[in-house]
């Protein structure tokens, strides 16, 4: 699905969403109220400049006090890899964007991620993974690192990694594996109206962070939830 198709499916009465240099901002009327939209389109890498444009839009929404949901649409590359970005503090800018989204969520704006294309590494963490609930459309391709790069870093042959990827969701790229890890909560049905599915997600938002429970249930992160709870239990003693 393209961004234009997604927006058409969400906003039957029109919208003000614009895409400039791969950065998505705007909003539209939704379910008797409205929805803010921010994001990254067209497999664009996210650098310091883009991160601050998106965080500005999120903070403006929080300051408006309208408590409207914020939809974070993502088809990005990884973080922009450059000397300039690191010199200017890319870690601070990406963290700032994530903080803005987490603040919005705490301030009564439901935050929903929608990944419909690629995303990876720091860009994925600062956008889609900083929302309360992350939905995906079939065909989305989130990853930490592609397998050829994993092969390079781990010094393992690519064909061996490809073979392992079939049985081991914990390291392999792709939507199914991110669903199994609990990072992606739900895969939407492109055959059904999108607005209704997003409306249902917003209506059924749960408090807290349930990603480790999902990862355990789905088998992609078998031990994380138990470890976190064991730490909490030991910390509570003595």
């Amino acid at each position, binding site marked *: 699905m393209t961004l234009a198709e997604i927006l058409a499916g969400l906003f039957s009465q029109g919208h003000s969403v614009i895409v400039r240099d791969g950065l998505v901002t705007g909003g539209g009327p939704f379910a008797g109220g409205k929805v803010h939209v921010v994001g990254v389109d067209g497999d664009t890498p996210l650098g*310091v*400049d883009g991160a601050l444009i998106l*965080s*500005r839009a999120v*903070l403006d929404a929080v300051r408006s006090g309208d408590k409207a949901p914020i939809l974070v649409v993502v088809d990005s590359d990884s*973080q922009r*890899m*450059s*000397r*300039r*970005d*690191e*010199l*200017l*503090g*890319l*870690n*601070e800018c990406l*963290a*700032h964007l*994530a903080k*803005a989204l*987490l*603040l919005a969520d*705490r301030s009564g704006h439901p935050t929903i991620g929608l990944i419909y294309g690629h995303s990876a*590494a*720091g860009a*994925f*963490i*600062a956008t889609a*993974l900083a929302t309360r609930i992350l939905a995906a459309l079939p065909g989305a391709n989130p*990853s*930490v*690192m592609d397998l050829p790069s994993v092969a390079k*870093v*781990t010094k*393992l042959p690519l064909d061996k990694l490809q073979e392992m990827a079939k049985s*081991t969701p*914990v*390291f392999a790229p792709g939507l199914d*594996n991110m669903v*199994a890890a*609990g*990072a992606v909560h739900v895969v939407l049905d492109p055959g059904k109206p999108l607005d209704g599915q997003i409306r249902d997600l917003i209506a059924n938002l749960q408090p807290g*962070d349930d990603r*480790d429970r999902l990862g355990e249930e789905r088998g*992609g*992160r*078998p*031990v*994380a*939830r138990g*470890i*976190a709870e*064991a*730490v*909490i239990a*030991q*910390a*509570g003693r003595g």
Partner: protein
Amino acid sequence: MAGAHAASTDPDALSWYEATARQRVVALADPGSFEEFLPPTERRMSPHLPLFDLPRAFDDGIVVGRAKLDGKTVLVAAQEGRFMGGAFGEIHGAKLVGLLRAALTLKPAAVLILFDTGGVRLQEANAGETAIAETMRAIVDVRAAGIPVIGLIGGRAGCYGGGGLIAGICSRLAVSEGGRISVSGPEVIETNKGAEEFDSRDRALVWRTMGGKHRRLIGGADAFCADTVSAFRQAALDLIGRAPAFDLDTLEAEQARLESRIARFGDCRDATEIWARLGVNDPESVPAMDTRAFDETVSRVREADHDAR
């Protein structure tokens, strides 16, 4: 649940860079006060590394627990940069997430994170990446509850990838000369964009671009430490006392601070150009400055100290 004993060492003499994670924690805390959660004797080891024929560690490369700092209770996590580059695997990440969630009910005086990480452990990439996202949400929850989260960065693996993002979520950061904070590592940039974009073998360039002094001068870190455990302890105590609130005002201020940084320095090719514009008289001399001379230089840079984090 007595934690395993580690060699005790003198905090004034112990190099932060050279010390192991466990040595750092034991020497940082009030003597004898550290109590480890899920200590090595529990053998909570990675279920995934054997698939890659890689050795495991009894603590999965992170030490978490409770300690006293000047008599006050703090929760502490310390990454071991020498094991798998300190990277976030499933258990490693879940121990940090659990510690932060525990802080919400225990209400310690602070949570200290001793970063030493290359980012996500690729053999457990999806688990590591998701744990980083959970950690960031948990830190925000802890900060919003009024508990400072302080990052200490000076280990051999630096603070890269998702670790750099987590550092950016913390209330305050202390960094030493050897501490590097960045998202993409030098080798990653060079591999993807070529040596003309970033020559990873040029160590001086790496230190100028990502090192502790640059981060401190531009306000990316709040304290600069000599490479000793006692210097980091003193910085942690100081920073706990002046942690910014987590609210809209703070983030609006951070937005303005970062926008202004890019407007002023966005055309600079090298850190020395930025330092010159910040008003540093002899930018070329910064890398060789000792801690005292550097502190004096920082005290004249307005951008270095702020509550916009």
